[in-house]
């Protein structure tokens, strides 16, 4: 089985239940949106998916590898873009990528090739010698996406990657990641912004730790807009 599969995952912080039997899947070649208001449990789910936390119940499978039983094989097939920035501002773009490649055991010519390919994909090749500090927010995010692709993952996870970006950067990054999905990557994109989702995208609506609905964006929207449908389901204002 390929892509990402989450089955009946539960997680609590003490007495507070953050995830209550969440099941979802992100298939290869699809941009799956994990749509939920703040506090829905998206970040907890991402912490479990990236093994910063371990779920006591449920099962997570990444490209056919069980995250609990073979965590390293699963992590090796996963690219992650965290919500918080994770770049060293004083390193150059290329240095940052060499560091990450090293964490995945890539070095020498193999790493150089993978780094160039990732930079080309995101149109960042000419910025390789610049310090990260010199990049604007949009380019830093692009760099983080490029970095997440270096080790050739099959599953790409992005946790609200457009937070804090202007409209143009947001649209560009959303389009880039849709392209990656079209090329065959399994993408899980957490967001609370409905305008980042295309009509044909599969959407998983998460609210208060539960999956409310799992269908394509157009099915969920019905005759109205996705924003209205989301609002009706969660009872909270969706940001356009």
């Amino acid at each position: 089985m390929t892509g990402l599969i989450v089955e009946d995952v539960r997680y609590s912080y003490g007495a507070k239940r953050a995830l209550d039997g969440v099941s979802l899947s992100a298939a290869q070649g699809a941009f799956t949106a994990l749509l939920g208001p703040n506090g829905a449990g998206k970040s907890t789910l991402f912490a479990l998916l990236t093994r910063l936390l371990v779920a006591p119940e449920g099962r997570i499978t990444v490209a056919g590898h069980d995250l609990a039983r073979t965590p390293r094989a699963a992590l090796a097939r996963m690219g992650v873009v965290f919500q918080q920035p994770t770049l060293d501002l004083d390193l150059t773009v290329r240095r940052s990528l060499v560091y990450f490649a090293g964490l995945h055991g890539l070095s020498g010519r193999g790493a150089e090739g993978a780094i160039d390919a990732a930079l080309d994909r995101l149109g960042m090749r000419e910025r390789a010698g610049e310090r990260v500090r010199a990049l604007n927010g949009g380019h830093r995010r692009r760099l983080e996406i490029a970095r997440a692709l270096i080790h050739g993952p099959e599953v790409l996870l992005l946790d609200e990657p457009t937070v804090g970006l202007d409209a143009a950067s947001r649209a560009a990054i959303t389009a880039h990641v849709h392209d990656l999905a079209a090329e065959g990557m399994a993408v899980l994109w957490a967001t609370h912004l409905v305008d980042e989702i295309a009509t044909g995208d599969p959407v998983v609506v998460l609210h208060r730790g539960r999956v409310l609905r799992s269908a394509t964006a157009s099915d969920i929207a019905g005759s109205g807009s996705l924003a209205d449908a989301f609002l009706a389901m969660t009872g909270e204002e969706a940001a356009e």
Partner: protein
Amino acid sequence: MRRYLVALRAIVTREALRFISQRGRFLAALVRPLVWLVVFAAGFRAALGLSIIPPYQTYITYEVYIVPGLCGMIQLFNGMQSSLSLVYDQEMGSMRLLLTSPLPRWWLLFCKLLAGVAVSILQVAAFLAIAAGFGIRLEPLGYLAVLPVLVLSGLMLGALGLFISSAIRQLENFAGVMNFVIFPMFFLSTALYPLWKMAESSPLLARICAINPFTHAVEAIRFALYLEWNPVALFWCVAAFAAFMALALWGYDPARGMARRRAG
């Protein structure tokens, strides 16, 4: 195996590049022990008489006595500062990035420790070079013999910092930890005064000094600098490293959840 070494190199290089770009940190790391050596030791020289104790074979001045302790102090501060950067990294997310590497977590944390040790040894080398400029010269071979001991003591102090970083939640708390960890460890050790001096004033404090792992780190460094072998101190350093490392791994166990406090 190759992947392990590639990751080690990547982590050490990153730490070294960060260190070079933070010149202020390097300067502070050097100035601190030099102030002790030049100012504090000069003042104390008159007040403190030292008898001949191993590994010294002749009367020594107070400056000579505190050099190994100041090497230890550099490593103590460095160990705590590396973990300060870990707390900062966690908040910046770099720790998350590190821990999503498909290598065992113990190896990643060990690499992180070794990177900190490498930086601390550079600082100690610079300090010893300046001390030599002030006329405190040791046996040439002593500078070599102390290297493996500095690796061990650096690992031990780094592991302590790593454990503390896993246990504290915010940067603000760290200042408190500095006061409650660094100062007691430093002052309740043989860095500034030999054990018998301490015993003269308080047997209880002397006993605390004797079990302080930092004392053993300082003594291991002191003996190595004079090409002598101190198996007891080395044993205590190894044991303390094992204990602190076990605690640190426990602290960073995902099932316990290092991110528990900030996810969600």
